[in-house]
């Protein structure tokens, strides 16, 4: 009985650890691409265009004779910066709106939550196309747009979590000793809603990378020649008959990273949610 329990617990931890390691590796690559990349991501050799994998170019070359492996490695940084930047904005904005909307009654619940409802009516990528399209592409704009779009999603989650504990005894205790609104929110509520916020933020990192790569695929992402996975797939599409590696390797990388964030988020949720911990 005891053995089975620890075995199961280990298996759950194992999922967390394995996906966490994948994410850690990508963070490392994103921080130090120069260490991992064999070549420059932008140096081109027109004599060696659209080549398959070889000793010189492990993943082959693209239509300008650039090393695909090096471009994938250097493409990690913009993806992760945009994802973390956007999710950072979403957490700050979403937690503020959601907590205020969940704790207070009347106008202070109505106003933030209706704002959230309106924002949720716009599919993220559609609004992002409109805004980036007119504002112009670029890292800062992408972070702002994606972050802004995710504020409403985070606020929904936080609102629900706050509602479920606003009448609990420990929040009541804060009120009883005469704590003010800000203190109750920051000390009474915030620590107790961190679990869903962390899980949601992890899952959002995965989807933020997807939105960013989708925009890059459409040519609305990080401007070339800076490498970006979405842009590589979009450009490689034209040549995929002769040279499928240009599409396949960035696609697989993108899938592995997004899958890692999603599975990590799921494992984290199982880990942090006490209701699921005891479940069969």
């Amino acid at each position: 009985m005891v053995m089975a329990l620890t075995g199961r617990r280990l298996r759950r931890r194992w999922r967390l650890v394995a996906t966490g390691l994948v994410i850690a590796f990508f963070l490392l690559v994103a921080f130090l691409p120069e260490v991992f990349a064999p070549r420059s991501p932008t140096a081109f050799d027109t004599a060696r265009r659209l080549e398959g994998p070889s000793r010189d170019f492990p993943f082959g070359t693209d239509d300008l004779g650039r090393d695909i492996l090096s471009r994938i490695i250097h493409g990690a940084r913009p993806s992760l910066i945009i994802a973390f930047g956007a999710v950072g904005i979403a957490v700050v904005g979403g937690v503020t709106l959601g907590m205020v909307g969940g704790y207070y009654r009347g106008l202070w619940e109505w106003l933030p939550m209706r704002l959230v409802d309106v924002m949720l009516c716009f599919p993220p990528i559609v609004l992002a196309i409109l805004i980036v399209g007119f504002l112009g592409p670029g890292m800062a704009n992408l972070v702002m747009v994606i972050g802004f779009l995710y504020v409403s999603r985070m606020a929904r989650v936080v609102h629900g979590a706050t509602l479920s504990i606003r009448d609990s005894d420990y929040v009541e205790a804060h009120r009883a000793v005469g704590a003010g609104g800000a203190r109750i929110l920051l000390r009474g509520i915030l620590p107790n809603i961190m679990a869903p916020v962390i899980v949601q933020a992890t899952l959002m990192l995965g989807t933020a990378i997807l939105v960013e790569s989708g925009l890059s695929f459409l040519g609305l992402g990080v401007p070339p020649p800076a490498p970006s996975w979405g842009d590589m797939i979009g450009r490689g599409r034209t040549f995929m008959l002769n040279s499928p590696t240009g599409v396949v390797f960035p696609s697989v990388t993108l899938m592995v990273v997004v899958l890692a964030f999603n599975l990590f988020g799921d494992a984290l949720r199982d880990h942090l949610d006490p209701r699921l911990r005891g479940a069969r």
Partner: protein
Amino acid sequence: MRAYVARRVVTALGLTVLVGILARSLIHLLPGDPVSLILGSETAVDPQVLRTVRAQLGLDRPVYAQVASWIGGLFRLDLGQAFSTGQPVIEIIAETLPRSLYIVVGGTLVGTLLGIPLGVIAALHRNRPLDWIASGIAALGISTPVFVVGTLLVLIFGVELRWFPASGYVGFSEDPSAFFRRLTLPVTTLGFGMLALIERMTRSTMLEVLGQDYVRTARSKGLDRRRVVYRHALANALVPVVALVGVELGTLLGRTVLVEYIFNWPGMATMLLRAVRFRDYAVAQGIVLVISLIFIFVNLLADLLYALLDPRIRYE
């Protein structure tokens, strides 16, 4: 029930107006002068041109007046004219919207019809090989970008095997069989992602419901397992799935943009991309608005269906 329906309809109407205001004022909310944003930085700023454009778009009037007349126009189905061609925006939308709906509706159908059974199978075989397979498909579907799925489908079925045309559109009335052949790959692409979401939701709600007292009671009364699963559990597990389809419609509409782009499908999203490329703000804001209105409308339907299926909601 009637009060609930009335309240939801009023909310949806309110959202419609707010979304309309936001879509119209967005260009003013972005940093920079709206006219320069619309013209783009490449265009030499000739004051005469600026003035003409400003007057043409009504941007010389106060912002509240512009927004008010735009909202007024909405109720007359007047979304303004395309900046580049002068064609009424509503005409462009009327032409392209049905094409987009074909793939959205098709994708939802494929996703639902495959996702629910897969989710039930996964829940009934929890932590056993069948669950791993079904949940593995779902994890893959959620993590694979729609443009990767689409690109690979084009490569395999369009280019290599030549089973389906890789891109393009033929109207149903022109040639029904060509219409469906061209619809297959876009719908499959969109359906795969939807399938994944629905499988996961069905699996988790099924597991939750299967653990509940009334299911245990039904089983201990000696009812047949299949009957309990399908009559008692599944019926209740599907209620949140209905809501999910509504909520995830936003994701689906977003993915449609990429699917239309990949398959060269002349729908609304393709028009949006073209409008952005030619900086035709009138067309772009009209399309974004219509997409959001579809979202509001479908969510209203999902909510009403939800209330119909789950009596507890009505007494909230």
